[in-house]
């Protein structure tokens, strides 16, 4: 919730504007199937930057291109201003946290974490000392001698994090790192990741298809669809001023009327006969479905002139007597005129 408030201003990251990763016209196809078509993207130093999109949208491809696991068909990939598109992964100052963690099963945790340091010819004793410190930072100091198979999913996740971060990369790439964890652990790890990023100041590029995760953690988010970037912006930008119907629909729940976006929580439901105040717009219809969700109640309204609208109302007023409406009730959906947003109205697509 805090982060959302942070992002209210449109000048996010004003204090850190130095670009660290830049993609310029990067395209990638796999045997004729377009994975990425001419993408431009700039990530600033110190940012928590998220690549958000449904599966197959190109977000993971983008991450793999930055890591060096894939080579672009065309375009440039700049790391600290230097084109690294032709460099192999082991010559790039980035590290990756893999979706399946990719821990080496035949090595102990300390050997896993020291792997990158040893690869850079650091003496064993020193590498292991640093690895143990990194394990301590993720609360796994007592597990240094174990093998990955003896750990739980959350513990493995933390080892993967320590293994990447111990190398002090310029950029840390995270490929849906929390996807395999249960909800509670995921929330815990989200906070942990935020804390680590704040403490180390390392730039994070984070891939996820989970919009809640993206909104709650990121400084900025790039929304991917069909191999292209739909919009880059803060959580506030994406939610309140989506650049496309896709973004409007993908980020949060939405009612889209023509090129107008109405967020369900900004709508009100009143009995059919009720008068609507000045400055409000309205539509008539009947309740098709009503779901009580604790903090809110969600209603689906079938409009008289066709289509449906989703309304979410906070349960602020005590509801001793039960819900205000039942399926079949004739209702009016009303909203202040200022709540309606023209999609793509004032925000540029792509880069700010």
């Amino acid at each position: 919730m805090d982060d959302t408030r942070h992002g209210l201003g449109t000048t996010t990251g004003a204090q850190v504007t130095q670009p660290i990763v830049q993609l310029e016209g990067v395209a990638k196809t796999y045997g004729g199937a377009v994975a990425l078509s001419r993408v431009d993207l700039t990530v600033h130093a110190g940012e928590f930057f998220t690549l958000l999109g449904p599966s197959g949208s190109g977000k993971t491809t983008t991450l793999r291109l930055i890591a060096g696991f894939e080579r672009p068909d065309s375009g440039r990939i700049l790391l600290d201003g230097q084109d690294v598109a032709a460099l192999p992964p082991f010559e790039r100052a980035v590290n990756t946290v893999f979706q399946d963690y990719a821990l080496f099963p035949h090595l102990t945790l300390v050997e896993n974490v020291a792997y990158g340091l040893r690869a850079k010819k650091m003496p064993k004793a020193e590498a292991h000392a640093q690895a143990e410190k990194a394990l301590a930072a993720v609360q796994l100091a007592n597990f240094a001698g174990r093998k990955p198979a003896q750990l739980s999913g959350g513990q493995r996740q933390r080892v993967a994090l320590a293994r990447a971060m111990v190398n002090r990369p310029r950029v840390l790439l995270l490929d849906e790192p929390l996807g395999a964890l249960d909800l509670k652990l995921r929330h815990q790890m989200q906070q942990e990741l935020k804390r680590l990023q704040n403490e180390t100041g390392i730039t994070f590029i984070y891939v996820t298809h989970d919009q809640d995760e993206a909104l709650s953690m990121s400084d900025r988010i790039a929304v991917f669809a069909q191999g292209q970037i739909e919009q880059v912006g803060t959580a506030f930008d994406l939610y309140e001023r989506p650049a496309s119907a896709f973004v409007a629909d993908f980020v949060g729940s939405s009612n889209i009327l023509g090129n107008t976006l109405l967020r369900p929580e900004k709508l009100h439901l009143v009995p059919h006969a009720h008068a609507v105040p000045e400055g409000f717009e309205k539509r008539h219809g009947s309740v098709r479905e009503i779901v009580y969700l604790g903090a809110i109640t969600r209603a689906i309204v079938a409009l008289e002139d066709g289509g449906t609208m989703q309304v979410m109302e906070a349960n602020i007023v005590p509801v001793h007597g039960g819900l205000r409406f039942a399926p079949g009730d004739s209702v009016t959906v009303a909203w202040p005129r200022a709540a309606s947003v023209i999609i793509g109205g004032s925000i540029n697509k792509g880069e700010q």
Partner: protein
Amino acid sequence: MNLKKALSAFGWRRPGMANAALLGLPALWFAGLYLAAIGALLITSFWTVDDLSGNLIPGFSLTNFQQLLATPVYTRIALRTVGIAAAVTITDVILAWPVAYAMIRLADQRLRAVMMAAVMVPLWSSYLARVYAWRVILAHNGLLNWALMEIGLPRAHIGYSNWAMWIVFSYLWLPFMILPVAASVERIPPSLLEASSDLGARGFATFRRVMLPMALPGMVAGAIFTFSLTLGDYVTPMLVGGRGSDFIGNVVYSNVGVTNNIPFAAAYAVLPLGVMAVFLLIARKLGAFDAL
């Protein structure tokens, strides 16, 4: 129908009994035929044979073993057999890696199928035909020397020698190494190799520190094949070996099929059993059977 129901219910309540019923027959077969054969071998190794009539004299005598130990030639033959089996195994490991790696990591689906077929095809042809082919290749006026002379090199005198056996054995058993190594390479998640590269390890370091240790069970499984197949062979030494190329199997063969001194053959045949037992123990230590 009721009996069927009762049986399956019983099997469900007592899974141990159901398994015993299923495995009983193969277990009986194993114990009856396989172990009995080894038992007969061990017992016979303490018997002796009447020289002129060829009749067996049952009993308990250590004569055969004393003869084996007292005659240096049998130690030499045993060392030769084990030594060449080890050399063949190491050679096949080295040869199998590039093939297995290319097959799994570099080739696309179609090329992989073609390579797999190429590896398997020799196994469909006669073992003898393949050994004879090598005999022709390595002979004095054979293909190898013809090729050497064509490019202006002197002849190689490796036909009918331990070198020839090493080459032919390595060729014969290579598929038995490639297949398990390829299978274990295939089991390594690609993300591990990416992770290694991502952490700064170059190609060879990734091979040495990730692929090699992770494919160890496959290599050991392949080594069990190449080692034991070489250890027990006697046909290849007979066909492509030269002077001083006898294997344990040749001594056993000549004592069984030719000399009719079965007890002596049995005593000598106990040796490879022991060698394989040690080999399998080491293999188990290395985790070769973890994936079974």
